[in-house]
């Protein structure tokens, strides 16, 4: 292994600009002559818009224009769409209500935009926004997904009677019912997977500029996938043809899913820029972000697990109500269906599974993918069920898991997936050693001596990443293919530019991807640069989400590098008068097999361009290759997280005493970056389990609308984590990579809740397990023990 190649903990190339304050985030950009945009937003969760009067506001200082939903409709700007078609049990398509970028007739959640003010300064725009007069006809609101389909519930979209978007199912109902009928024991749980606000530290932003001479638009935005944004804004919103629309996502300060989606504000910025013929800049503030960023999770689930007399799991069934919010965000429909129910087999051989999912509209912010997207919800269901079942059966949770682990591969689950490789016992065993599981009892006794409760909880999770063969996802309703592209441009002097359709917003692609190139071509890592995030530079790409950039994005680069190597060998062959087949390439050197004749990388790259050693008929000059890589399967990262907590029963305060994660991500390019991804994922999962929860009151007001009420994990809430890996290389991509970005967030909530419930001695601990909740649970637990 070289110091900068595959497997090395190379320090990040991108850090230089971030640690010196010279990064380039969207809000850092100013364009000459720009105006600032500020949105007038609905204070009501559900209301008709009866009248909008902008006349007084328009006369205010600095105001350039004020635009409404009627103007948007007048200009025939289309609405936003959800790009994954889900079909209900009865074969009918999902019921997607219209989502105009600015509401014209009706608002459906607090924060729905009703007008946009364009002014010389932000202060002027904000002042004028307050002067826009909107007459609302306030309607009753529904926020609880479990109540959305009830008779008499307020209706959000005419197209979706009873607010039902789809009722979908997966699995074999009859076989599952039979399994439950024959079960020796059934474990039942009611679970609320709490709604979360992603809260990337960089709020969303958009700057749009119109080039009148070329009738072309440029958008700088905080996007995880600028090409998809361009495609949707062009093909569905109808803003401009793709070749007249450039989308640039520069440095992006975290996404966690929330920056995948195409949002109203970027559509409005583009449209407004063309109308006023000046650049338009919009930067969300945090309060606005809470109201308008797509939220995550929000499931209400009943789940059951059947076991036989030998403690083998024989069946699993769930019914989930998924809150989609007020509008269907870009990939919202896929999250509680194909990203959720397909993972309900967990790491276990379960013969029969049946899942039913009802997706409903409510008067809340749209809900879409947030770190893990469906897989954390599935893992929480499975890992809570398994832990509780073990407790009910009087078994050690590790033993019960071992008894039911999938142990031979490939393994076909009853819910679509074919697991390709893994060793679940290996990661669990290693995790148990790392946390010193066998001495947990001693530590618990020690805590009890000090008046504290102690608990330990497992989460042996599996997820599906590298999403996925395009044909497969197409058959499941995806509106796009999920391949990735790469282009390798080798310059005459031998430096290399990699153009990738993946996008880095914290993941460190500029380093990891360069390591692959350095390793493959034997060139110094400093001579490799990664180009991403600009639709004018990169031909097309699908962006970064679903832990796909390593498994899919790097596989595309690897494929393009194969072609580069082939071509370079041909050049070297002409240089050394040998057949290309006789050329060996290693460590940046081309050697004629069996001889000491060789040429270096730089000689070959120069010769590729000067083309003096071959004719155009023999070989095209230049050294540039592209590739599209379409995965042959999902990848299946898996592992074991163990959480150990100490609880102060008097206050309900949880101290995380130990956290161990042993993950199998397949082959690893940069272990330092991978560990960082795990740490961050755990923090977000711990956040979900004990701190975070978006809460709307009955009127649809977001009560947790700022960091004052929405608890974000701070340094003092978390311990240092003990992180390690086991490796079963992924057989379905050339690099053997599985993906690591979401695992922490997927695994950790169940581990933590399993630990807390273990400590308090009963299962009734909802998320987030705040001190107030835990105190109450601890009281109940102690009572139980005393009885």
């Amino acid at each position, binding site marked *: 292994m070289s110091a900068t190649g595959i497997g090395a903990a190379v320090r990040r190339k991108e850090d230089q600009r*971030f640690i010196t304050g010279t990064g380039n985030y969207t809000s*850092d950009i100013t364009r000459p002559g720009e105006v600032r945009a500020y949105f007038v937003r609905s204070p009501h969760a559900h209301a008709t818009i009866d009248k909008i009067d902008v006349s007084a506001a328009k006369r205010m200082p600095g105001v350039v224009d004020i635009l409404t939903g009627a103007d948007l409709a007048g200009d025939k700007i289309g609405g936003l769409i959800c790009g994954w078609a889900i079909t209900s049990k009865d074969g009918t398509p999902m019921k997607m209500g219209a989502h105009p970028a600015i509401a014209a007739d009706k608002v459906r959640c607090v924060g729905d935009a009703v007008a946009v003010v364009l002014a010389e300064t932000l202060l002027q725009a904000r002042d004028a926004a307050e002067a826009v007069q909107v007459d609302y006809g306030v309607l009753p609101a529904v926020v609880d997904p479990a109540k959305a389909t009830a008779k008499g519930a307020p209706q959000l979209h005419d197209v979706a009677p009873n607010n039902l978007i789809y009722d979908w199912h997966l699995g074999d109902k009859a076989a599952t019912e039979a399994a439950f009928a024959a079960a020796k024991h059934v474990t039942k749980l009611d679970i609320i997977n709490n709604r979360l606000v992603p809260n990337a*530290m960089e709020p969303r932003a958009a700057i749009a500029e119109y080039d009148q001479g070329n009738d072309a638009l440029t958008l700088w935005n905080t996007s995880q996938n600028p090409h998809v944004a361009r495609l949707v804004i062009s093909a569905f919103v109808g803003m401009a043809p793709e070749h007249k629309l450039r989308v640039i996502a520069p440095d992006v300060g975290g996404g966690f899913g929330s920056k995948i989606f195409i949002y109203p504000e970027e559509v409005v910025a583009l449209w407004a820029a063309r109308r006023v013929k000046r650049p338009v800049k919009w930067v969300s503030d945090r309060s606005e972000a809470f109201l308008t960023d797509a939220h995550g999770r929000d499931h209400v689930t009943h789940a059951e697990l059947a076991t036989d007399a030998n403690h083998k799991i024989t069946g699993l069934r769930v019914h989930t109500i998924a809150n989609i919010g007020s509008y269907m965000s870009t990939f919202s429909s896929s999250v509680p269906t194909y990203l959720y129910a397909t993972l309900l087999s967990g790491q276990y051989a379960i013969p029969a599974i049946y899942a039913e999912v009802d997706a409903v509209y409510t008067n809340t912010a749209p809900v879409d993918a947030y770190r893990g997207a469906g897989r954390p919800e599935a893992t929480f269901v499975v890992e809570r069920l398994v832990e509780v079942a073990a407790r009910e059966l009087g078994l050690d949770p590790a033993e019960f898991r071992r008894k039911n682990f999938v142990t031979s591969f490939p393994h076909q689950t009853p819910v679509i997936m074919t697991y390709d490789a893994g060793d679940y016992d290996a990661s669990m065993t290693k995790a148990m050693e790392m946390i010193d599981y066998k001495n947990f009892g001693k530590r618990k006794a020690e805590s009890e001596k000090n008046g504290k409760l102690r608990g330990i909880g497992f989460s042996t999770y599996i997820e599906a990443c590298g999403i996925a063969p395009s044909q497969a996802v197409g058959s499941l309703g995806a509106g796009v293919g999920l391949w990735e592209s790469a282009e390798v441009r080798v310059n005459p002097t031998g430096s290399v530019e990699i153009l990738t359709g993946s996008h880095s917003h914290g993941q460190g692609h500029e380093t990891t991807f360069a390591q692959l190139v350095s390793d493959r071509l034997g060139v110094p890592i400093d001579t490799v640069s990664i180009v991403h995030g600009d639709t004018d530079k990169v031909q097309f790409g699908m962006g970064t989400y679903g832990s796909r950039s390593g498994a899919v994005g790097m596989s595309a680069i690897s494929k393009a590098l194969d072609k580069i190597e082939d071509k370079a060998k041909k050049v070297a062959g002409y240089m050394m008068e040998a057949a290309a087949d006789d050329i060996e390439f290693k460590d940046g050197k081309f050697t004629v097999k069996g001889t000491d004749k060789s040429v270096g990388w730089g000689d070959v790259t120069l010769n590729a361009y000067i083309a003096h050693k071959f004719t155009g008929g023999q070989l095209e000059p230049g050294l540039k290759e592209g590739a599209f890589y379409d995965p042959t399967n999902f990848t299946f990262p898996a592992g074991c997280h163990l959480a150990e907590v100490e609880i102060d029963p008097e206050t309900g305060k949880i101290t995380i005493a130990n956290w161990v994660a042993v993950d199998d991500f397949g082959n690893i390019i940069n272990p330092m970056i991978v560990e960082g991804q795990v740490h961050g994922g755990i923090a*977000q999962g711990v956040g979900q389990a004990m701190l975070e929860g978006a809460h709307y009151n009955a009127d649809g007001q977001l009560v947790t609308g*700022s960091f004052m009420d929405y608890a974000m*994990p701070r340094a003092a809430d978390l311990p240092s984590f003990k992180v390690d890996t086991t490796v079963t290389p992924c057989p379905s991509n050339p690099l053997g990579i599985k993906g690591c970005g979401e695992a922490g967030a997927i695994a950790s909530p169940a581990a933590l809740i399993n630990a807390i419930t273990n400590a308090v001695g009963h299962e009734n601990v909802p998320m987030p397990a705040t001190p107030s909740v835990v105190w109450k649970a601890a009281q109940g637990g102690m009572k139980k023990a005393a009885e």
Partner: protein
Amino acid sequence: MPNVTVTVNGKSHTVDVAPETLLVELIREKLRLTGTHVGCDTSQCGACVVHVDGAAVKSCTMLAMSADGATVTTIEGLANGSTLHPMQEAFREHHGLQCGFCTPGMIMTAVDIVNRKGGNLDEHTIRDELEGNICRCTGYHNIVKAVGAGARAMAGGGKSAQAAE
């Protein structure tokens, strides 16, 4: 419009500002030093932390007018030319950042911690002192490591540390 005179990263500026201008707006919009970030509107996230007269402050919660006559150091002023400050170096070495958005505030806070508490910081102290800085990417694990290492480096002859202030 009133004006303020501030010395930012060693350079004196006299700038016309509206009274409602925040220090962070002066820094980002008037002086175009965009390394200092804004991540919230409730003075909690700490992405905007700079040093004013040697002490860490949230530049989103201070009027530009209040900085009249003050000496301000932002993330851009921390390195000594092309030599990184030991705390910057430590954040890179220990992978104390991912998306980079909270990083300037984290580093400025970290330097302030060392200035107040010295170079020998235990994990508990570091986590406590990061109370006012939120990171969504790293789970703080590597930030804590970076601050500890950066503190040791500053104490052990971090000349650039003092020079920059």
